[in-house]
């Protein structure tokens, strides 16, 4: 391939990676602001920013996972299980402890998924499909199907509190994404994830322990789902074994893919996931405020996704890769 032309392509593609979605969001924001003053109110923008973090945080782990060439659709049930377990323990071990338990539980679930995938070589999709039933069922049985309420002030603050008028979830999100971006660019682990995702064999020949990396990636999925669960639980003031995390897996995957992470692995875009969560949130919010019939909202969201993935196709075509 001709280096110069290649380079021009990268130029375009890489600009799309970092500025494509932000541009779309800006357009979206401006349009809706012109259409509705309530949309443009600082409050509305902020509270939706906070709302977007519920999916955004969960998406972080999934970006790692999909970058490494795998997949986890058990995150919804995982979230329910971790949530009820943590919330139920507040009385005994206090808010901080309970929060830690929540995160730990989800992390362990992630680890279990990872073991099935790496050790038994069962495709991630199938494994997590099965575990999805298991985690949810355990959550039901453990609580005998009663919602668990979050009364603990510390925990409540995490999802509903504000610092200098900024909703705390936003701060958590910023920290998480910053950390994730850091891990991806500045740690050897981050490099290994990309390497494994883009070419397993080459990674193995470079002395990388592929199975270990893959397993760690699933642990990360669990970890961030755990954090997301903590925030969500406190945002809702309760955890419901049946409701919490319903459809969460597909929300998360949508955001990750919309963010420009290819399901073929290797090519990931961490901040893209963040912007995608913003984009979808503001899209829904705007349509809602304009009193658009919610049936049309389904159609709109679906079309946007197809469109966005289409664009990523073009991008990866420019970069000379293929999507599976």
């Amino acid at each position, binding site marked *: 391939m001709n280096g110069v032309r290649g380079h021009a392509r990268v130029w375009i593609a890489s600009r799309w990676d970092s500025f494509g979605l*932000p541009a779309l969001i800006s357009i979206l924001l401006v349009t809706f602001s012109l259409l509705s003053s309530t949309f443009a109110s600082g409050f*509305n923008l902020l509270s*939706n920013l906070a709302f977007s973090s519920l999916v955004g945080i969960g998406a972080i782990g999934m970006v790692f996972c999909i970058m490494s060439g795998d997949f986890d659709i058990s995150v919804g049930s995982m979230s329910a299980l971790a949530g009820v377990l943590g919330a139920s323990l507040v009385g005994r071990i206090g808010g901080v402890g309970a929060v830690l338990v929540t995160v730990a539980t989800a992390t362990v679930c992630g680890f279990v998924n990872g073991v099935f995938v790496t050790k038994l070589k069962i495709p991630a999709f199938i494994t997590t499909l099965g575990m999805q039933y298991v985690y949810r069922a355990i959550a039901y049985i453990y609580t005998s*199907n*009663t919602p668990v309420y979050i009364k603990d002030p510390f925990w409540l603050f995490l999802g509903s509190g504000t610092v200098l008028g900024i909703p705390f979830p936003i701060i958590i999100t910023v920290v998480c994404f910053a950390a994730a971006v850091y891990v991806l660019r500045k740690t050897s682990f981050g490099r290994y994830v990309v390497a494994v995702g883009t070419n397993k064999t080459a990674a193995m020949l470079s002395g990388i322990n592929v199975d270990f990396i893959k397993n760690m990636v699933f642990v990360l999925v669990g970890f961030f789902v755990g954090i997301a669960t903590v925030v969500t639980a406190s945002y809702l*003031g309760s955890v419901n074994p*049946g409701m919490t995390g319903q459809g969460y897996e597909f929300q998360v995957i949508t955001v990750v893919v919309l963010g420009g992470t290819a399901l073929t692995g290797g090519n990931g875009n961490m901040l893209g996931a963040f912007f995608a969560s913003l984009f979808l949130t503001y899209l829904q919010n705007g349509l809602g405020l304009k009193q658009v019939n919610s049936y049309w909202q389904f159609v709109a969201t679906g079309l946007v996704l197809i469109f966005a993935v289409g664009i990523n196709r073009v991008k990866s075509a420019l970069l000379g890769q293929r999507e599976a």
Partner: protein
Amino acid sequence: MKKILSILLVLAVMAGAAFAGGAGEGAKKEVTIGFSLWTMKYTFFQAVEKGVRDACKELGYKYIMIDQNEDATKMVNDLNSLVGQKVTGIVITPVDPGAIGPAVKKARDAKIPVVCADIGKTGPVNALMISNNKKGGEMAMEYMDKLFKEKGIASKKVGVGRVQPQYTYASQRGDGFVAKAKEMGYTVVSDLVTQPPTAEGGYDTMQQMLSANPDIAGVFFASGREAVGASNAIKAAGKNTLVVGYNGDPEEIQAMKDGIMAGDIAQQPYYIGYQSVMLLKEIFAGKTYEDAVVPVDVALLTPSNVDEFQKKVDALMKK
């Protein structure tokens, strides 16, 4: 660097938008009702929505509806958004009543009264208009008992098909039914959750109940469309088991007209929606409601009174 730039870009636009939009805020004088609804997918909720809308029209209130799309987190965000829009009052039909607490508190802190239209509540709501689910279940049992006696059905076996477990509020219907059944000396031989939570699910579940107890005398379904499916199953199996449903939606009314469904407990979704706004009106006028529960009666529909009921409903919905 590019990343930072991209973030700055978005932030800048946001700030700009916020600044521009800032002016728009608070400017509105007229009374505005914000309504957050579970979903527009089912007839019941469409009726509630109609009720709220009509009431607002009647009182000349501005009306904003947001669909939760059956997502608890979206519900909370919508509530926050309504608070942000400084609406005068909020009506909510929550998909997850356990999850509205913090949001309701925010609303009340902002001096915005909140009325729950059915389902349930947490947090400092002013009032909850709610169908008497428990009573509905009991009525169903009593009605069955009456029919058994008339038809001279000896079997003391009854069953209940519940809605999905996560909708705890609706399980009271089943609870009410079960309690009453015990009280009246019946045995609840099967107590199942209808899966999937739609008519065809009712069909499957009914078949299972019939296999387990061929002589089951009557079954109460905590949701109407599932009762319709169940009635079809009974008809197909050539049994005479009595089915009583819950809701009073058109499909149930039709099933009763066809004579395959014995009875139905009709809720008054339109009334619930309508009255919720009326409650808010009183609150605006200075009347205090704190954490009040306004039970809304449920009506027993039988083949004899179903027609007039339908006329009433149609009249309301066409208004």
